[in-house]
């Protein structure tokens, strides 16, 4: 089947619409349980109520800015630490296994510690997101820099580049695709933990709202809020992709 000429975005929306329609139908027919899954139409219908009564817009902004802050921190600190480990080999040898272990640990369980340090505030939430997302960025930055093709490095050496030229003109741009794989992973971890902690400590934006609505058994509201969580991550990832293409054109 050829779908040429139809923009992919339209196909995406059509697919989602179709799936939602089918779910709605199955729920109405009683083949799916309405106590577990809300009607998609009810989810859509709850948007208005959420904006009017639950300050959805403010909460979206709050979670959005927390997510942005955590993303920037994760990227900047993670990449810098990765570069540091690359430059100081002995440090990499000493710490790489630990960083990998942290990457696999369920950091979210440490939230009481963060509560004690930062209080019940946005700082705790951002800090948790940051800690959760840091490890993959460090590891992938290190991997990317270590994996730069020898021939590219040799080109730089053959022109007697200064160490800083060698890094900024060759090693760093060459490592960008791998670094961005790490940043993407890191941001996924950061976002999951961010919403999770909002939920757990009942503070902040969308995570808290999901908590409230779940306690009131407002399933449609919960699902509607999740849609907005997804919206936050879509915006962040779209921005990230832009940035990668700008920093590293030409594939």
């Amino acid at each position: 089947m050829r779908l040429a000429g139809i923009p992919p975005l339209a196909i995406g929306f059509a697919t989602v619409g179709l799936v939602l329609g089918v779910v709605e139908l199955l729920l109405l027919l009683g083949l799916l349980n309405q106590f577990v899954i809300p009607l998609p139409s009810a989810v859509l219908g709850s948007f208005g109520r959420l904006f009017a009564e639950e300050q959805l817009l403010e909460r979206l902004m709050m979670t959005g800015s927390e997510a942005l802050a955590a993303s920037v921190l994760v990227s900047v600190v993670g990449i810098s630490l990765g570069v540091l480990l690359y430059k100081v080999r002995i440090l990499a040898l000493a710490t790489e296994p630990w960083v990998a272990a942290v990457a696999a640990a369920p950091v979210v369980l440490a939230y009481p510690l963060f509560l004690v340090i930062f209080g019940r505030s946005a700082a705790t939430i951002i800090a948790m997101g940051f800690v959760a997302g840091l490890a993959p960025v460090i590891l992938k930055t290190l991997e990317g820099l270590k994996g730069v093709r020898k021939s590219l490095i040799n080109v730089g050496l053959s022109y007697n580049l200064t160490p800083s030229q060698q890094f900024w003109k060759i090693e760093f741009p060459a490592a960008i695709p791998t670094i961005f794989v790490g940043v993407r992973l890191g941001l996924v971890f950061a976002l999951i933990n961010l919403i999770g902690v909002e939920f757990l400590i009942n503070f902040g934006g969308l995570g808290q709202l999901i908590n409230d609505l779940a306690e009131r058994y407002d399933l449609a509201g919960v699902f509607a809020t999740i849609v907005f969580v997804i919206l936050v991550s879509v915006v962040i990832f779209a921005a990230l992709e832009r940035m990668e293409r700008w920093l590293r054109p030409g594939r």
Partner: protein
Amino acid sequence: MPASAAKLRLAETVKEADLVIDGVTMRFETREGAITAVDDMSFSVERGEFVSIIGPSGCGKSTVFNILGGLVRGYEGKVSVGGDVISGPHPSIGMVFQEESTFPWRTVLDNVAFPLEVKGVRKAERHEAARHFIDMVGLNGFEQRYPAELSGGMRQRVAIARTLVFEPKILLMDEPFAALDEQTRLLLGDKVLKIQETLKQTTLLITHNITEAVQLSDRVIIMTFRPGKVKRIVDIRLPRPRTGDVVGSEAFGRHVAEIWNDLREEASRGMAESEAGARRRKG
């Protein structure tokens, strides 16, 4: 003895020589023990001369290339470039590498302009110079493309233009056409020949292609396989300026046969050894 013959030649030509490699030995430590990649090699390349090094895969050609380029240390012996004994990359040497070496994130224009950019040449000026050399390797019209949008042969031409833009007095090329098909290789060889006849650089080409070596060179250095030594140096007595037609001539065929004769022995020894090595690793 071929090595002493090389030394004799060295003594005669040392004043004119742009590249002198004198008793160079390089060993690598590997898990299977130390291997001598290059063993007491001596030869020289005179100013404006085109010399090829030919030898079977793994005989140490790239090692010699990296030593001449100042990219590796830890060898015995002495290398001088334009009269200076080197201890690192020499500014009058330009290198074209065996592996893919264009920068994927730069357009053709910015790839070629790279050496001037890092030396602080102004944008307009370096782009003008880059355009000139892009034209010379026949890539005009592709200035704004990225390497991923080019064929392998075109990327290699970008790498050659990037090296030429710096106007090196001495050009080192490590199997620049190895990944190309025979026709493209001959055409590019023609191009390199023309460029060298205009720019008159001292050129050292590393290759394992006999036709290419004979087509382009004034002299061909044949290397032995493990340890890599100079087996013989062949003078190519073909008239210059040369064109692609020279490939069909009788003298050309004689040179090819002569070199193949020397090389066959080394190549089969190389193959036998790598097969034995593979069996050892398996067993």
